[in-house]
Each structure stands twice: as C-alpha cells, then as structure tokens.
C-alpha cells in the first residue's frame, strides 16, 4: 500500500488506527511465522476454560444458523438435522438427556437427526424454547431460525422433487384466458 507523505500527514501516519500493512514480502518468513504461531496457539488452547469453549461453540452454532437462513440456498451438508445434531451434541454428552429435557422420546430424536422422520410442530416449538433458555445466558437468539431452517429444507426438498408432483398438478390446474 502506497502511503503518500506530505506536510499534512506525518503525524497521522503514526496512528495505528489509520493503516496497517501486514503483507509478507518473503514466503519463507511467512511459513516460518505461521508455524510458530500455530504451535503457540495450540499451547494456549490448553489453558482455555471449558466455559469459554462451550460459549464459543454455541456462538458458532448461532451464527451458522443465522447465516444459513440469510443465505437461503440449499445445502445437502447442512440443514435442520445437521444443526439439531450439532446443537444437541454441543450441550449434552448423551442425546437421551436432551430428549428428556424437552420431553420427547429418544427414538424420535434419533429419527429426526437421521432424517428418517420430519420434526413435528411440537418438536420444533420445544427446540425453540430450549434454545431461548440456553442462549439467554449468552447472547439473545431469534429462535425462529429453527422453524425457518425446517421450512427452507422442506421448500428445497419439494422443489428438487418436481418430477414427482408437477405433472399431476399441471393436469389439475387451469388458467382461464384473461382478456
């Protein structure tokens, strides 16, 4: 980055909040420093408390949920089942404990996570209430993200399977000529 020096700028240029140029000019130096940094980071990670680890994982889930809804595009890797599994596994050692806390059967939970069964409204509402309680201790979450992700998944699945329903409905639906 070229920084133009003139009589009006010399003091400003020393202000660290004005500009930082941290590009490397040597690939070897970059690799060396990256290696040293990674080693130091892994060492520092050992001193992070379990509380901070949990908080970070929950924040990650929250922001990933929000990004997924904002993006609105289908993603086979993610979706309701993925986020549900990640959320439950972050908070509980055993999934059955989550099932007990929200008063659903462990079998139902397993079927929803495994995508063998769709979540009912009752299930989603309980999940929303559970999230609200968890995140109230951390950072408020718009719990409707769970419902939105479920609806997004449903929409994408329906549109991806048009061959199964389009022809049938095309026969039934007519549009009268509008003059």
């Amino acid at each position, binding site marked *: 980055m070229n920084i133009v020096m003139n009589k009006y700028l010399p003091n400003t240029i020393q202000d660290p909040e*004005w*500009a930082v140029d941290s590009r490397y000019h040597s690939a070897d130096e970059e690799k060396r*420093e990256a290696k040293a*940094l990674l080693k130091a980071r892994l060492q520092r*990670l050992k001193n992070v408390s379990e509380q*901070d680890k949990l908080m*970070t994982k929950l*924040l990650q889930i929250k922001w990933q949920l929000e990004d997924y809804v904002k993006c609105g595009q289908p993603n086979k890797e993610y979706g309701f089942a993925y986020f549900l599994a990640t959320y439950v596994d972050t908070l509980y050692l055993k999934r059955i404990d989550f099932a007990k806390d929200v008063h659903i059967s462990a079998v139902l939970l397993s079927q929803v996570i495994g995508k063998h069964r769709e979540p009912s409204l009752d299930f989603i509402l309980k999940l929303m209430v559970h999230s609200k309680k968890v995140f109230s201790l951390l950072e408020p979450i718009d719990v409707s993200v769970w419902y939105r992700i479920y609806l997004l998944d449903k929409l994408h699945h329906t549109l991806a399977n048009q061959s199964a329903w389009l022809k049938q409905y095309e026969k039934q639906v007519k549009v009268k000529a509008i003059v």
Partner: protein
Amino acid sequence: MGLISVERFPMEWRLHIRLLCAARNHVGKNKIYDRIAGNLMAYVAKLAVTEFGLMACLSLRPKTSLASHYCRKYRMNATGTLLSLEVPEINNLINEYCHE
C-alpha cells in the same frame, strides 16, 4: 469509512488481516467516527468464529512500533512479529464491537 483485506488460511483455522485502514477523517483528534479499525477487526473475528469455532484465530502483523498498541487495546497475543487473537479474547473483541 474503512477498508480491510483478509486472507484465509483454513488449514490453520486462521484469518490474517493483510491490510487495514480507516478513512483520514476518522483518525486523529478531529475524527468524525471512532472505532473503525476495531469494528472491522470484530467483523473478521466473527467470520473466523463462525467458520472455525473453537480453533478460530485472527492474525495481524503491524510494524514493531505499533504492536504494543494492538496488544494493549485488543488484548492480542504476540508470537514473533505476528499478533493474534484466539478464544477467549476473540469473543471479547466481538462482544465489545458487535453488540453496542
């Protein structure tokens, strides 16, 4: 108001700030808006945590004379000439600048 250029190092779970600058009228004694650099860094920090979770890292390599400012203000860790933010300090930065 400001610009930031970031490089991703996914194998190291790290986002490196290559360039960071605030507009001239937002720096110095007569600045119009404050905390431009902090907000930009916090935005990138949030991206890092969203993508890398617990392993998230934000790094920066300022001039030696400016490093102490970043260590003091943003609680960055120094490793050689590199300054970095990891958990939990990275969450503190996000809390301070993203939740005003």
